[in-house]
């Protein structure tokens, strides 16, 4: 099967590496690594400040990426794209600046990542608001009827994961928005696990906020994106304050800068943003047609093979599933599984996946997880299966 493994230097430098942990972070293609080093070698200067050519080049590359991100997720305006440190910071920004009052309710699901739980918990504690948590169905899908039932006049925001980083479930995002908008409730999607795996059109979704990380999209770590509809971003106060986000400062009063700069205090991660731009070019070049059919084939192949292993149970069996498989192998603890696989050069994730409430809900202490990228192929899965047979031998 065709893969893009040759674009990723990590595999040249680690020839026996079988990387099945793209949901944690993707590997980086040569073009992204080059874009970052080329920026430092040729164009390094601070943005939005210098009046010299070098700074103008840096600014053009940085702002060019903003437009690229806007095009990539089909945002109406580039100023609706705010660069953050990652998905986590983007959600923290919204939790900090979006107005929540005492008695308000925030709706999320059992399958949320800690990054979409803890910031809202903090807000609820501080403001006297309440978290409402939607349960799941047996196959790991959102209980949509339960979702419809909790929406009420007190609901201030729906904050939901687009694709589960554990179960792989792809949530019915359009339906979620349609139901909440009927009651004028805005919706935030945590797109960290979706952005590299399916086309995202925020205008078509009509969501109010969408957030994701560059490093799960073949881009550098330390960069994330917050998309917000202009009307919300205009109404929200800044998250952090300082340089670049101001229009005029006196000791009496400060006038804030316009969007998007209002939310980007201090010198941003310029190299990281430029690297993200290269990653978007790369993903566009490969195309989602390939990505989706490739990952679907891997998911099908791996699921079938894993089902054949005695005592292996897969968590998350929705028809609408992304390239993520979480499992438990009889009584072998996921950490032992991961250590044993690592000896054969196979990197998988083991643990609670930053989703402890989901682990409690599934009544498991931890899970093993494999996830796919454009560099994986069937032979990776065959080796995984051999590795798992090895685990069974050791624990037999």
């Amino acid at each position, binding site marked *: 099967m065709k893969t893009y493994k040759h674009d990723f230097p990590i595999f040249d430098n680690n020839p026996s590496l079988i990387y099945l942990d793209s949901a944690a972070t993707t590997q980086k293609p040569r073009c992204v690594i080059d874009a970052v080093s080329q920026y430092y070698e040729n164009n390094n200067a601070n943005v939005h400040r210098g009046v010299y050519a070098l700074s103008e080049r840096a600014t053009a590359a940085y702002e060019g990426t903003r437009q690229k991100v806007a095009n990539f997720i089909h945002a109406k305006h580039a100023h609706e794209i705010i660069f953050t440190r990652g998905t986590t910071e983007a959600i923290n920004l919204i939790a900090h600046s979006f107005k929540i009052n005492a008695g308000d309710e925030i709706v999320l699901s059992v399958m949320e990542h800690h990054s979409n739980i803890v910031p809202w918990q903090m807000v609820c504690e501080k403001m006297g608001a309440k978290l409402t948590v939607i349960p799941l169905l047996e196959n790991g899908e959102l209980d949509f009827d339960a979702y419809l039932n909790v929406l009420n006049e007190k609901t201030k925001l729906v904050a939901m994961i687009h694709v589960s980083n554990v179960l792989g479930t792809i949530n019915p995002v359009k339906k979620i928005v349609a139901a909440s908008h009927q009651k004028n409730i805005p919706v935030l999607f945590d797109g960290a696990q979706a952005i590299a795996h399916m086309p995202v059109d925020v205008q078509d979704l009509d969501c109010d906020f969408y957030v994701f990380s560059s490093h799960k999209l073949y881009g550098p770590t330390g960069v994330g994106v917050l998309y917000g509809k202009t009307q919300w971003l205009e109404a929200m106060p800044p998250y952090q304050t300082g340089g670049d986000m101001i229009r005029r400062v006196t000791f009496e009063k400060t006038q804030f800068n316009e969007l998007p700069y209002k939310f980007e205090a201090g010198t941003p991660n310029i190299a990281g943003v430029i690297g993200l731009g290269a990653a978007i070019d790369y993903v566009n070049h490969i195309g989602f047609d390939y990505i989706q059919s490739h990952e679907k084939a891997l998911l099908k192949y791996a699921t079938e093979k894993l089902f054949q292993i005695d005592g292996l149970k897969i968590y998350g069996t929705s028809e609408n599933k992304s390239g993520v498989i979480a499992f438990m192998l009889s*009584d*072998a*603890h*996921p*950490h*032992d599984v991961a*250590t*044993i696989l690592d*000896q054969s050069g196979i990197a998988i994730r*083991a*643990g*609670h996946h930053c989703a*402890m409430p989901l*682990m409690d809900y599934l009544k498991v*202490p*931890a899970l093993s997880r494999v996830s796919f990228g454009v560099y994986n192929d069937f032979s990776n899965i065959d080796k995984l299966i051999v590795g798992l047979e*090895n685990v069974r031998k*050791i*624990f037999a």
Partner: protein
Amino acid sequence: MNDLRELYQEMIIDHGRHPRNCHCMKDADLSKEGFNPLCGDRLTLYLKTDNQKILDISFEGSGCAISMASASLMTEVLKGKTLIETKKIFDAFHLLVTSGKESDMHLLGKLAVLKGVCEYPSRVKCATLAWHTMMEAVRM
């Protein structure tokens, strides 16, 4: 595969699967919870002590083979030891699993089977969870 056998020796698999002294102790004088947030391993340690001596010790919990085996072996080794001896054993064990260095091996007995952990830095915390919980419980 050989390296793995070094880590997952039969005794570890056995103690991991059938941990000894693994039960709640209702009349314990001391109990302490240990938690490894990185992997979600958790255990509760129960102690009965008299005059700085461990009369009885047990634990309950869930975790990987290494953490369960380490807790099980610890309870076997520490039963009947004084707290001073416990500290010495802890020091020798900690040195062994973090660096592979052998000192006071005569104190360790069966615990030596966990030496292989030193080759797996990400697993040292599994092997030491019960021990750190123990040292916190007796405040040493």
